C-alpha cells in the first residue's frame, strides 16, 4: 500500500512537529516568556492538526490510504517491525480528534497554567508542562498512526509515560497543595496499572507474531481468519487486558480517578478526551480479529457495560467536581468499549469523538471553576484577613460542598458547563444524544443484557450530572470563597466556546440516515450503518429527563446548606456509603494485591535473600562450614593425627635412648666385656650353624 500521492508523505510530521516543539522549548524555553513557550507548544500542536487535515483531504481523494515507511526498527530473524506511518480513515479520525482537541487544550492551558504555577509558587514549572504536553501529542500520534501493533505499543506506553509525568506534575504536593507524596503516588499508580494492561498487550503481540509471523496490521488481518478459535480468543482477551488498563475498564480502572491529581488541562486532554480512548481505538483497529469471535465480543461488551454502570454509581456519590467527571469518563469509556465490543465500531468511534468534545469541555470548565474558587480563596487570603500570618486553612477548591451559586460569579463558565452537561446527559439534539443512542440501538439488537445495563448507566449519568450542576452553580454559596469566585480570562474560555459548539453540533458527524462517519470509516473497517431506533431513543430520553428531575427534587428544591450531608444518604443508606467510598475497591486492592506484594517483597528481600541466603546460608553454612572444615582439619586431623605420629616417634626414641643410656656407664672394661660377649655370641652362632 505504498501510496505517496498528495500529502501522504507529510504524515511523519504529525509526530515531528510536536517533538520539534518540545525540543525548542527544552533548549531555548528558558529565555522565553510564558506566552512564548505557550505559543511554541500551541504552534507545534496546531501544525500537527494541519498535517492531520491535509491527510484527511488526501484521503477524501484516495480513500484507500497509504503506509509511509520512515525507518526500520526491530529486524531480528523473521521478526520485522518498522517505523511505518499508516494513513487511513480510522487513524486520521483519531489524528484529527487528538490534535484538534489537543490544540484547543494547549491554548486553554496557557491561561490555566499561568495561574496554576503561581498558586503553587513555582513558576519555573510552566515550561516543563508544555514540554510534557507536546510529548504527549507526539506519543499519541505515534499510537494512532502506527502501522503495526508494536509501533502502536510505543505510543501506547509513551502516552502512559506522559500520563505519569503529568499526573505527577505537582509531584511534591497533594491535590490540596500540601507537601506530600500523594500526587506522585497517583502518578505511580497510573503507570503501574497501565503496565499491567501493557503486559496483556505484549502477550497479544507475542501470540500474533508466532501465529501470524507479523505484528503488522495488514499482515495479521490477512491471515487471522485461518487461525484456530482458541488463538483468536486468547489474543482478544490479552488485548482486552491492555484495553482495561489504558481505557480504565474493570478491573484496572482504579488509576483514572486518582489521575485527577494532574492539572485540569491534563485531565481533560489525557484522562478524558484522548489517551483513555486509545483502548477503544485499539479494539476498533483490531476489528477483523474481534469480528471472528463471538465469545470475545460478548466478553468485551459485557466488561464495557459493567464498567459503565459501576463507575456511574460511584460518580453519584462523589463530592469532588473532577472526581465526578473522572468516574463519568470511566462510565462513558465503558459505553465505547461495549460498543466496539459488540461490533458497533462506528458507534463506538462516534461516541469517542463526541465524548472528546463534551468531556474536554466539562473538564476544562471544571478547571475554570476550580481556578475561580482559587482566585476567590486568594482574594480572601489577601483582602479578607490582613492579619499577616493567618494559619493556613486547608481549603479544597474542587469540593462541590464548598461551592453553590457559582452561576452568578462565573456566568460564561456556567453556560459552557451547561452545554457539556446536556450533551453528556444525552438530550436531543446535542452530540451525546446521537452517539449514545447509536450505541444503545446496536446493543438492543445484539446483546440485550448490555442494552439494559447501559440504559441504567445512562439514567445514572443524567442524574449525577444534574446533581453536579445543581450543587455547583445553583443555590447559595456554601463557603465564603464561593461567594468571591471570579470568572476566567478569555484565553481559557475561548477554546471552551469552540468545544461547546462542537458539543452542540458534533452529532451532525453521523446523523441517522446520512452516516457520514460510518461511510468514512467503512474504507478501513468492515461495518454497516446502524438503524435509528425510535423506541430506544424515546426510552433513553425519557429516562434522562426523569433522572434530571429526580436530581432537581433532591438537590435543587431544597439546596444543600453548609455541612449538610448528602440527601441521598438518607434514602440509600449503606449503598450510598459504598458509592461515596468507591465501593472500597481501592482498599480491597490495597489489601489483596499491594500489601501482599509489599509483604512478599519484604519477605523475599529480608528473610529469604538477606537473613537466609546471604547471612545464614552464606555466612553460617558456606563460610562457617568452610571455617569448621579447616578447624576440623587443623585440630583433630593435623594436630591430632599427623602431628602425633611424629611426636610418638620422637617420644619412643627418647624413651628407648633413655633406657639405653644406662649401658653407657663409661667403664672401658664393661665395654670390653660387651664386645667380648658379642664376639663369643657371634662365634657361638657360627659354630652352631
Amino acid at each position, binding site marked *: 500500500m505504498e501510496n505517496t500521492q498528495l500529502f501522504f508523505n507529510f504524515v511523519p510530521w504529525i509526530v515531528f512537529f510536536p517533538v520539534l516543539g518540545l525540543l525548542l522549548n527544552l533548549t531555548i524555553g528558558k529565555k522565553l516568556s510564558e506566552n512564548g513557550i505557550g505559543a511554541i507548544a500551541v504552534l507545534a500542536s496546531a501544525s500537527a492538526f494541519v498535517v492531520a487535515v491535509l491527510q484527511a483531504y488526501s484521503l477524501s481523494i484516495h480513500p484507500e490510504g497509504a503506509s509511509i515507511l520512515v525507518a526500520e526498527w526491530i529486524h531480528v530473524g523473521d521478526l520485522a517491525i518498522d517505523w511505518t506511518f499508516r494513513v487511513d480513515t480510522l487513524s486520521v479520525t483519531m489524528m484529527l480528534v487528538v490534535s484538534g482537541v489537543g490544540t484547543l487544550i494547549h491554548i486553554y492551558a496557557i491561561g490555566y497554567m499561568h495561574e496554576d504555577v503561581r498558586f503553587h509558587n513555582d513558576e519555573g514549572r510552566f515550561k516543563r508542562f508544555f514540554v510534557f504536553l507536546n510529548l504527549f501529542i507526539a506519543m499519541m500520534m505515534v499510537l494512532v498512526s502506527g502501522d503495526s501493533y508494536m509501533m502502536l505499543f510505543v505510543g501506547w506506553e509513551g502516552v502512559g509515560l506522559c500520563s505519569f509525568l503529568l499526573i505527577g506534575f505537582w509531584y511534591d504536593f497533594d491535590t490540596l497543595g500540601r507537601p506530600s507524596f500523594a500526587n506522585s503516588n497517583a502518578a505511580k499508580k497510573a503507570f503501574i496499572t497501565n503496565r499491567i494492561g501493557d503486559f496483556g498487550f505484549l502477550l497479544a503481540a507475542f501470540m500474533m507474531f508466532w501465529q501470524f509471523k507479523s505484528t503488522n496490521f495488514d499482515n495479521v488481518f490477512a491471515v487471522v481468519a485461518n487461525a484456530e478459535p482458541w488463538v483468536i480468543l486468547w489474543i482478544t482477551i490479552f488485548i482486552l487486558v491492555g484495553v482495561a488498563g489504558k481505557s480504565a475498564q474493570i478491573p484496572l480502572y482504579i488509576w483514572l480517578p486518582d489521575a485527577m491529581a494532574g492539572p485540569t488541562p491534563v485531565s481533560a486532554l489525557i484522562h478524558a478526551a484522548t489517551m483513555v480512548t486509545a483502548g477503544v481505538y485499539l479494539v476498533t483497529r483490531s476489528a477483523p480479529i474481534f469480528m471472528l469471535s463471538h465469545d470475545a465480543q460478548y466478553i468485551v461488551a459485557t466488561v464495557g457495560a459493567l464498567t459503565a454502570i459501576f463507575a456511574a454509581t460511584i460518580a453519584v456519590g462523589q463530592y469532588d467536581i473532577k472526581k465526578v467527571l473522572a468516574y463519568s469518563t470511566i462510565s462513558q469509556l465503558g459505553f465505547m468499549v461495549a460498543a466496539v465490543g459488540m461490533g458497533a465500531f462506528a458507534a463506538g468511534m462516534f461516541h469517542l469523538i463526541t465524548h472528546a468534545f463534551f468531556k474536554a469541555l466539562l473538564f476544562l470548565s471544571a478547571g475554570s471553576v476550580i481556578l475561580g474558587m482559587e482566585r476567590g480563596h486568594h482574594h480572601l487570603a489577601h483582602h479578607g484577613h490582613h492579619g499577616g500570618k493567618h494559619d493556613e486553612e486547608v481549603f479544597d477548591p474542587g469540593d462541590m460542598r464548598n461551592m453553590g451559586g457559582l452561576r452568578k460569579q462565573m456566568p460564561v463558565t456556567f453556560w459552557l458547563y451547561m452545554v457539556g452537561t446536556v450533551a453528556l446527559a444525552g438530550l436531543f439534539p446535542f452530540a451525546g444524544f446521537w452517539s449514545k443512542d447509536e450505541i444503545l440501538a446496536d446493543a438492543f439488537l445484539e446483546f440485550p443484557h448490555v442494552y439494559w445495563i447501559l440504559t441504567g448507566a445512562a439514567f445514572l449519568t443524567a442524574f449525577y450530572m444534574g446533581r453536579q450542576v445543581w450543587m455547583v452553580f445553583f443555590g447559595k454559596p456554601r463557603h465564603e470563597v464561593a461567594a468571591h469566585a471570579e470568572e476566567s480570562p478569555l484565553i481559557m474560555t475561548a477554546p471552551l466556546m469552540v468545544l461547546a459548539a462542537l458539543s452542540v453540533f458534533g452529532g451532525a458527524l453521523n446523523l441517522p440516515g446520512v452516516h457520514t462517519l460510518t461511510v468514512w470509516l467503512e474504507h478501513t473497517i468492515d461495518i454497516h450503518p446502524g438503524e435509528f431506533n425510535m423506541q430506544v431513543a424515546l426510552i433513553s430520553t425519557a429516562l434522562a429527563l426523569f433522572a434530571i428531575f429526580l436530581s432537581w427534587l433532591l438537590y435543587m428544591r431544597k439546596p444543600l446548606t453548609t455541612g449538610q450531608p448528602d440527601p441521598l444518604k438518607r434514602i440509600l443508606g449503606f449503598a450510598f456509603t459504598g458509592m461515596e467510598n468507591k465501593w472500597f475497591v481501592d482498599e480491597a486492592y490495597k489489601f489483596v494485591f499491594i500489601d501482599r506484594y509489599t509483604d512478599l517483597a519484604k519477605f523475599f528481600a529480608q528473610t529469604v535473600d538477606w537473613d537466609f541466603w546471604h547471612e545464614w546460608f552464606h555466612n553460617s553454612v558456606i563460610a562457617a562450614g568452610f571455617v569448621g572444615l579447616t578447624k576440623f582439619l587443623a585440630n583433630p586431623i593435623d594436630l591430632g593425627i599427623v602431628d602425633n605420629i611424629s611426636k610418638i616417634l620422637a617420644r619412643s626414641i627418647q624413651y628407648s635412648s633413655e633406657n*639405653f*643410656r*644406662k*649401658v*653407657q*656407664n*663409661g*667403664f*672401658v*672394661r664393661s665395654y*670390653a*666385656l660387651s664386645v*667380648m660377649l658379642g664376639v663369643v655370641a657371634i662365634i657361638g652362632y657360627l659354630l652352631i650353624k
Partner: protein
Amino acid sequence: MIPVNYYLTLSVVLFSMGALGVLIRRNSLVVFMSIELMLNAGNLAFVTFAKMHAANLAAVHNGQIFVFFVMTVAAAEVAVGLALIVLIFRKKQSIDLDQLTHLKG
C-alpha cells in the same frame, strides 16, 4: 714334630689370659699389656696355620704377612696408646681405668 694342637692350645691360653687381663685389671698399663698378649696369641695361631699349610705357598705367605701386619699395628697402637696414657696420667694423676668415665651417657 710337635702336633699343631699344642701351638693352638698355647695360643688359646695366651688369648684367654689377655682377655681376662683386659676385663679384670684396672691399671691401664696392665690392660695394655694384656691386649699385646691377645695380639701375640693371634700371631701364634697365624704362624701355626701357615706352617700347617706348608704345601700351599700362598697360604704360608698370607699367614706370615698377617703376623707382620699385626706386629706393625701393635707397635703403632703402643705408640698412640702410651702417649694417651701419659696424657691421661698428667691430667688425672692416675691411670686407673675406672676413674675414666667421661663417656657416660
